[in-house]
């Protein structure tokens, strides 16, 4: 099993965000960063598949400035074998540019599986995986919640609105991972020590032309501050009155 996993460095979403002076990005001062959650489940899936197969290699890939090496190290300390950083000054918003850089690197690499998260928490496009699949000409299943691979054929489940789909596909393939497939392992101390010795290959990212740009970022309108209208069942008549007369939703 030769597997590639693409991981993105994203800010911790608990933060209070501020718009940067350029008006088109987030001010990164004081933010904490970590691996995108969906991507940690993709790394876990890759490691489990390799362990089950009893052999193989897991390559982790990230597009961005040197700061992404921290994210790459995390994947290495979880157990990934190889790492590639596709270098850019900053992580582009344009999913297609990222997809082009990733597919240029993976093309001809002989991977059985290329794994992605369902979407990144910051830019939230949910596009890079399927785009890479197209660029590489590989079959692709997005947002999977279960996965079973037997003799070169995969079977996965994905959730739609109010329904589930069962999908079959041949390997090699591109998959994007939804929540629920697994629980990501924590890096062990041994893993962290081992990761320090693993090299990270660096190459310039071939982003190509930008197709989508961010022309402004703004904070959404604030919701009015919450209001407690009362305690216990005694407050129900007042709630119903407000729903009818003020909110007009009943």
């Amino acid at each position, binding site marked *: 099993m030769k597997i590639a996993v693409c991981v993105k460095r994203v800010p911790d979403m608990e933060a209070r965000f501020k718009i940067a002076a350029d008006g088109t990005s987030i001010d990164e001062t004081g933010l904490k960063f970590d691996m995108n959650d969906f991507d940690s489940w993709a790394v876990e899936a890759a490691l489990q598949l390799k362990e089950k197969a009893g052999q193989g290699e897991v390559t982790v890939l990230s597009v961005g400035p040197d700061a992404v090496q921290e994210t790459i190290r995390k994947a290495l300390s979880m157990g990934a074998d190889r790492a590639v950083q596709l270098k850019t000054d900053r992580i582009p918003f344009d*999913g297609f540019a990222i997809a082009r850089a990733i597919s240029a690197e993976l093309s001809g690499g002989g991977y059985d599986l290329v794994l992605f998260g369902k979407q990144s928490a910051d830019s939230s496009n*949910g596009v890079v995986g*399927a785009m890479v699949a197209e660029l590489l000409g590989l079959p692709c299943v997005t947002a999977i919640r279960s996965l079973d691979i037997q003799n070169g054929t995969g079977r996965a489940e994905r959730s739609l*609105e109010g329904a*589930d*789909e069962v999908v079959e596909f041949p390997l090699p393939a591109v998959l994007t991972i939804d929540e629920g497939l697994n629980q990501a392992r924590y890096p062990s101390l041994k893993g962290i020590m081992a990761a320090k010795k693993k090299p990270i290959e660096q190459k310039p990212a071939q982003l190509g032309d930008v197709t989508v740009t961010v022309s*402004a970022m703004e904070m959404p309108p604030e919701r009015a501050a919450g209001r407690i209208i009362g305690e216990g*069942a005694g407050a129900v008549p007042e709630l119903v009155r407000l729903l009818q007369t003020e909110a007009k939703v009943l």
Partner: protein
Amino acid sequence: MPNVLAFAEARSGSLRKVAFEAVTAARQIADARGGEVHAVLVGAPGIAARAAELGQYGADVVVVVEHAGFAQYNPEATAALLAERLGSGYDAAVFSASAQGKDLAPRVAAKLGVGLASDVVDVRVDGDALVATHPVNIGKVMATVRVAGSPALVSIRPAAITAAPAPREARVETAQPSGDPGASRVKVVELREGGKGTLDLGEAQVIVSGGRGLKSKENFSLVEGLASAFGNAAVGATRAVTDDGWRPHTEQIGQTGRTVSPNLYIAVGISGAIQHLAGLRTSKTIVAINKDKDAPIFRIADYGIVGDVFEVVPALTEAVREARKNG
């Protein structure tokens, strides 16, 4: 040709509501530029019967592609035919950012090498470009994104815009698949639909959501009871609840679950973790019932009741029934 393509999403032979939303958004773009809306309807033989419905929302032309290979969602064959169609000259294409649309739109964009504004909540024309608003950082920040070039692709978040009637008699045009749909490598072998008559979270005007405060799976009957008192409500849940298997994952609302924007969101026994709030922030009115007056959910609830769900919810259910009977 300033025409706009809209992908009309169907499931099991019926159009989904998001299909009409896509046509409505396409209509807005086409009207701004003086073009036509061409809805593409793909399905098993018989799907053509649905074409007229798309005219009701403003499709000038409905391109119908029928093939047994489209009985289930067929991502590869659908992407191939859309890319081929768009190659014949369109300004823009609109998808829903539904599970299916999010799977399809990036494939088409990559095939054509064009830009895609994904999961936007509005879209407008600015000169040669499409400009749209896209929530980033779990909805805490709004980005204005700009797609230049042609065709420009967008996917619209379900329920972010309201499907608006713009009736006309659509011309129906029959088209062929691009290649053999039966030859697709990716095959949907089964579709498990939720219980009949259950309203999807994305379409419900009212959502009653339950959290760990309900204490057990069985107690969700309280949430279901309140939902049914409203008549048109769907049931949602927190991750704590779906993780414990009290409710299916498809009902999870939040950062890693669904994003919803109902008129009314009622949070029952939910603390209001940031990851949960990410999914409901754009609800019009939020109600919270929680026994802890300091629970973060009260900070964004328009109306909060501090109290025990086992006492408040039955009373509210009864009161809502009464109100609807008299209203």
